[in-house]
């Protein structure tokens, strides 16, 4: 089971509504974001330019470094959904997971002294009844949630529409095997490997 997001960058216009939807849904305070939208570009020289936006959040790695480095087991993989989560009650705020995460998507909650991150809105999605708030709110319909191992999931169906040269991962430099897929067609922009 590989629950994650598939994000179609051919559609995304970088409006940040997913960022706000996440904050409202998860009650995040000022200065705390579980997802962000990174503008890639414009690259080139005016007026010959390309640009796309990458919404970034926990990539739901198959080999999640955050889980393996956690000294208390607070970072864990949910046995039911296989989603990587944080048990706040056992988190001691040691930051090991944040150092281990190659994507910088964990944020430290100063007030509660614990690490936080995207849960794929597990409170809505775990029983299969709902979708993550960012997926629902997305103003261009660019976000798809589901199990990549289930060909009937929204995520798998969206991927199936595209050739492999349109499907990308964030660089797997740490061997964590991120599950999250990004769709970007070459006619919109050439995929840039982010460092």
């Amino acid at each position, binding site marked *: 089971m590989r629950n994650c997001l598939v994000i*179609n960058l*051919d*559609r995304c*216009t*970088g*409006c*940040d*509504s997913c*960022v*706000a*939807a996440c*904050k*409202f*849904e998860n009650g995040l305070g*000022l*200065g705390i974001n579980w997802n962000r939208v990174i503008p890639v*570009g*414009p*690259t*080139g*020289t*005016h*007026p010959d*330019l*390309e*640009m*796309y*936006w990458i919404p970034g959040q926990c990539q739901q790695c198959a080999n999640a470094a955050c889980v393996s480095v956690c000294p208390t087991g607070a970072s864990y993989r949910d046995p039911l959904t296989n989603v990587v989560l944080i048990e706040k009650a056992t988190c001691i705020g040691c930051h090991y997971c944040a150092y281990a995460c190659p994507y910088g998507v964990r944020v430290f909650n100063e007030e509660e002294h614990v690490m936080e991150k995207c849960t794929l809105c597990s409170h809505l999605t775990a029983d299969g009844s709902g979708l993550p*708030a960012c997926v*629902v*709110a*997305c*103003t*261009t*319909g*660019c976000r798809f949630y589901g199990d990549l191992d289930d060909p009937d999931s929204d995520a798998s169906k969206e991927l199936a529409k595209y050739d492999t040269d349109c499907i990308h991962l964030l660089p797997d430099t740490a061997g964590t095997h991120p599950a999250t897929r990004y769709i970007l067609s070459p006619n*919109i*922009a050439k995929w840039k490997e982010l460092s």
Partner: protein
Amino acid sequence: MTMTEKHCPKALSRRSFVKIAAAAGAAAGLGVSMSGSLKDAGKAFAESGSSIKTVKTMCHGCIQFCAVLATVEDGVVTKLQGDPDSPLNKTSICIKGLNQMHTVYSPRHILHPMRHVERGTNKWETISWDEAIELAATKIKEGVDKYGPYSFFVSSGGGGAYSGFWAYGFCEAILSPNSFEPGGAQCFMPRASMAPFVYGGRPPSIADSFLWEPFNTYKPATKMIVLWGAQPSISQTALSGHGMADLRVDRGCKTIVVDPNFTPDSAKADVWLPLRPGTDTALVLCWWSYIIEHKLYDEDFTKYWTNLPFLINPDTRLPYLAEEVWPDYVNPAKDPNDEFSTPAYVCFDKKTGTIQPLPYSLPEDSPVDPEIFFTAVVNGAESRTAGQIYYDEAKEWTLEKTGEYCWLQPDKIEEAVKLYAEAEVAGIAHGVATDQTKASSEVPLGVNGLDTIMGYVDKPGVTLTHLSEQYKDRPVMVGDTAALGAWSANYGVGYHVGKTDNWNKKRVEEFPDQELLKTYNQLQRDRLGLVEHKGFFWQDNCHIPTILKAIRTGEPYKPRVWYDFSGNKLAMLGNAQSWYDVLDEIDFCICQYPMITSFHYEAADLIFPLQEWLEWNGTSDIINNKFMFTQVIHLGETVNNGVPATRILARYRELMGETGPSKYTVMPQPDSEDGVRAGVAKDMGVESYEELVNNQDKYVPKVTPPDEYWRYYQYLDIVSDGLPGGFATESRKCEPYCTILLKMSRTGWPFTYPLEMPACDDYNPICVNIPPNENPGDDPEYPLVITSGRVPYYHHGTMRHAPFSRELYPAPEVKINPRTAAEYGIEHMDWVKISSPRGSISARAYLTEGEAPGQLWMERFWNPEAYDASQANPDGGWRQCNINVITDNYVDSDTEKPYNSVYGSYTLRGFQVKIEKGERPENIWVEPKEFEPFMPTLTSEPQTGDVF
């Protein structure tokens, strides 16, 4: 998803509320939460049991309205998402919409009427609704008693409370000629009114819910769309923005974006034309020239359905009528009843090689084969066809010359024009950008004209469409419809274009209330700035710089009692300082808004509290679906935005010793919330509001059957006179050579008929090149050109107190090319100072190749934190980062004819500035935690009943 489980607390009546409020006394202060004084009521509600419900309503975060679902838990809205029943936004909601959960509960949301203790401070005194209405009505009366009704004026616009119709209606009820909004000539009016002038139909504006055809999923047809100065991905993010994403990705629709700014729509476009700001007319003429030269136009449509083959009298600049050349000519289309007018014109007939009458007919019935581009001798004068006149004007604009002038690559222009003209079907969707330039009339005239010569009119997939209308007779343009704006027809004023002179004369003579007609005509005559800019009659507005001068000098009379219906005028009006400077000429300033803005801080004497959209009732359409705004919650004593006006007007009339409704106004709004609800039920076609709101699943949305809604080729349908319907213009054809503009400039026709206004210089009947007032190289002190636009976090002047938007976009960013920035030693995210002769403002530099070298781009901004209680030296927050401090309205300019001729638009995009490194200004916040005082505080406010 219903409100059956209506869990409203026992509502406080207005009277008891006011009583409690009065008891709270001065403690209210600003922010004006009454939660303390109403603790008991709130507690009673809290104890009444918890409940969760979902209500169908609509978002009003911008000028398009998405259908949304609001989740309400124990009386507090905890979640907003798009309504899956919506055909366009679906489940989407953008950050502007989500912000409502903060703004409705914001400490800045005012809940009671307040009297300003002193202008230029944030000191307010809470007063009762009765006191506030009495004060407002008395002050209006004082002005009228002392100086006559022209002492009064109104304004609306600016975002957040949409009250234009009530504003104009109120103005007329007082018998004052002057209302305005910062948009108007600078937003909406030019592009919205030009389409009816050119083809008698709906404007191709993608920002205003006028243009739905590209989003037609019933029979999708749009293959190619040009976004000319429009950015739906940012300005209408979840509605037209979502629609564009569907079009591009799901339907493979090609797009061209004409925009100096590298918007997300530019980034996704097949061709992006980043033209120099304000040079659109040259590009329009280049497209005309290329299309004519390469014969890419639709020859049959142009020949028979546009007025370009008409031979034009060089003296009058109007088309010859057949009777002028052949006095005995009998027009076969003449109406024997002398009601409908269908003139016959003069053309050069290819078949006979002579000039011939061109009677109105179906193309296949035409006795002639008219030349579109020709010069012939008519009545002894060398006369060109309208088409020839256009071509002569356009042909100098070659790809190369246009490229140089507009800062474009000639091959890109060619690629774009071919993509547009060689498409099976296409259309130009026109946005606000050119409304904010001196060429505000010429650009829509030119682009609408292009669509007509391409035959992209009234057929599937185009942007000039009619929707739902069904012609029975020859179509007519009248002043009581969107086609001719305003409400002149209600007063018997205005020429019905498409009917005969005799019929119009008789109608005026037989109008039952001649005094009403004459009064309205006199108001038109005395409206400020209208002799020069008669296009304003379309929206019943006055010219903003002219009213400013009248306030300042008292000439020819002094508007002095101001009722502003919405928004932050100091952030939205060009040359803000010039407005600040006349505030002390204003005897009394009545305002209404959901929050205190810079304008209220500096100018208001009294403010009425308006509802945020979660408190509203109303209806609106998304394509062929009618949805409803539902009052999900209600706090304090806020009211629907039409209510204060109706209440003040009623009291004013009592004070004046008048009874009943005024005949001088058609102000539409009922004066109570129940009245609003009744209107909603009626609009939704449901017997009662209760029935509707308790069964939203059944009634919302109300759908017009698609085959009734999507209608095409109506100009070909044979109507009552046995002829094809045609278009609602004088010639019954598309008029890319826009005769109505010529007649308008000379007499005010058709708006002021029977009154003839004094003439001004002729308006251009075709697109001609209108250079910007200021150009790079004109003044070495101001070497950079600046333009502006929106960001997705805000709409107009709204939401600068929405903390999640502010932490993402805390201060305006001025986009600048890295090469240009390097010349000034400016680095990414440096604070910079941008100056024009009007003043200086601050912004943070955003270095990007998206901006052309030598060009800047910046969003509008203002800072409500500047008068937060925590500030040691508070100020109005409109000077720090407000681009309108550096824009010009030319009230002190020696520029000759600085405004657009037709609409009087001043320039907000494409003017010259200089830039240097600067510093973060005083009293503004940028760090996320700084916005803590904007986080919601009113969630424990009790639910209240209706004020009225």
